[in-house]
């Protein structure tokens, strides 16, 4: 795929706190590049620098081969940005919001009308176009928030956690919309700490933690190292008698994490050892409440790389 944007050696500190540390990556034309990481990983700071709203302390960003600060106006024209917080005028209608925000990108007259209609259809809000935003549900506002960013048909859409705090139906609608944008050839940069979303929409993933990129690749390549693993999550009634080391006596167990009454065990896929784990717990007098088994996921990748869960 053609290279659209290059970010090299980006650094940023807020006073003494270093929030980005030598971040470098590339964005390819037509891909959905997902930034995955827990809160405080540096995703939003990276996004803010990419939008040119925040300056960096060091590093360079080039868009189509030219530094963005030498083509700021045309660079901003090519961007569509969905901020984390809802950026809508509540007292105005959906149509008025779209009209204003699209006009900032130079649209007017019939082109503006066409863009508004398409954006409203995209957001599934065509029938509510004249209603004030303050009467919308959280999910509808989120959809309009995205529509306002894509009305002017940008080349690159940057979305910063656009599904925070919404119902599953609206989330699915948004994820389907992003796939639609990708199919139409738009390039999307998407940040989230929901690995389920990344699994659904990403073509490439960058995992961040503590202001640095830990790893990057496709879903397939990231899971390669752990595709022979599966994860058991066991809820027990009261934990007091069993320790992590006990589980390593069972063949195939790779890692163990005990948190309160929940035990997470990563085990090799080919070895059927669940009955032995259950027997071990029974021997120790633990009462099992629930057991789930799942194959390796991006969550597992993150856990393996950082030693903690995405939402820790």
């Amino acid at each position, binding site marked *: 795929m053609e290279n659209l944007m290059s970010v090299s050696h980006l650094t940023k500190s807020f006073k003494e706190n270093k929030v980005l540390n030598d971040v470098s990556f590339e964005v390819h034309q037509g891909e959905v590049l997902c930034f995955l990481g827990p809160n405080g990983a540096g995703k939003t700071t990276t996004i803010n620098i990419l939008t040119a*709203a925040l300056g960096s302390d060091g590093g360079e960003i080039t868009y189509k081969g030219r530094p963005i600060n030498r083509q700021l106006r045309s660079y901003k024209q090519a961007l569509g940005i969905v*901020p984390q917080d809802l*950026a809508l005028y509540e007292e105005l209608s959906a149509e008025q919001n779209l009209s204003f*925000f699209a*006009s900032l*990108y130079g649209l007017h007259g019939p082109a503006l009308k066409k863009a508004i209609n398409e954006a409203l259809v995209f957001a599934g809000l065509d029938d509510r176009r004249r209603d004030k935003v303050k009467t919308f549900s959280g999910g509808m506002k989120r959809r309009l928030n995205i529509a306002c960013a894509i009305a002017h048909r940008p080349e690159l859409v940057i979305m910063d956690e656009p599904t925070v705090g919404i119902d599953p139906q609206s989330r699915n609608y948004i994820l389907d919309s992003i796939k639609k944008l990708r199919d139409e050839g738009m390039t999307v940069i998407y940040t989230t700490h929901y690995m389920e979303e990344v699994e659904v929409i990403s073509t490439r993933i960058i995992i961040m933690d503590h202001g640095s990129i830990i790893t990057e690749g496709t879903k397939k390549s990231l899971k390669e190292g752990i595709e022979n693993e599966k994860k058991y999550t066991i809820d027990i009634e009261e934990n007091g008698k069993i320790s992590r080391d006990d589980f390593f006596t069972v063949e195939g167990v790779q890692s163990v994490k005990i948190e309160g009454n929940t035990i997470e065990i990563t085990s090799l896929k080919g070895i059927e050892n669940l009955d032995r784990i259950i027997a071990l717990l029974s021997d120790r007098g633990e009462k099992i409440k629930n057991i789930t088994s799942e194959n390796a996921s991006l969550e597992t990748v993150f856990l393996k790389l950082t030693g903690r869960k995405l939402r820790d």
Partner: protein
Amino acid sequence: MRRFFSIFKMDLTNLFKNPVLVGYNTVFAALIILIMGFLTSGNYADSRNAYQYYTVTMLVYGILNGAMTASNCFMERDIKRPNLRIIYSPAGGFPIYFSKILASFVFDYVLHILLLAVFCPLLHVTLGSNPLYFIALMAPVEFAAVALGTFFCCVFHCEETTSMLLSLTVSLLCILGGTFFSLDGLGPALAFISKLSPVKWLNDAFFAVACDNSLALFWPVFLGAALISALLILGCRLFFRTEDYL
């Protein structure tokens, strides 16, 4: 230019849709003129003089409080978030704060002129033989006040801090300037302190135009306010940083 006009129109719409700001610049201003005029009417030989005094001084007070209109237009929480999209757009930095200044100016100026249009005939208040001078003198002072509000926002990056500081400053200067009651009769020391307040000069300039048909203070105040406005806009240019909006 089209982008700037879009932003300006949106800022103006948001101001006129804000019932608190509309009420503050009309109903509150009217009530304070009526109450202060009524309470002090006994101190004047002709009760109309009390209303004349407070229409002018409260108008000056209202004009200076226009600084808070600008801070609200610029960084009020519900407005600030959608304004973020303007930052992201190719509009550039200057139209963002200058449109707030211009919209706040038009909003305050229009409402204050409407207030005068109602109160002058109702309370027999005079604006001088040619009211256009009075109206014209209001313009640069209104502009300087809203530019001050925007400048404070650029410096302090926060509407609450800006409004608190402006409210304190304006109230203090207005008290010293004799807006609520004249300090001239309270001894030479207070009269001297009063003269230090720029609000006193403003009041004197407006009274000179309205009551004495004198333009002696018109041009100094007009040009002084215009110069201050220009300096404050320059200050906004120096202090405005898009990241303060994030």
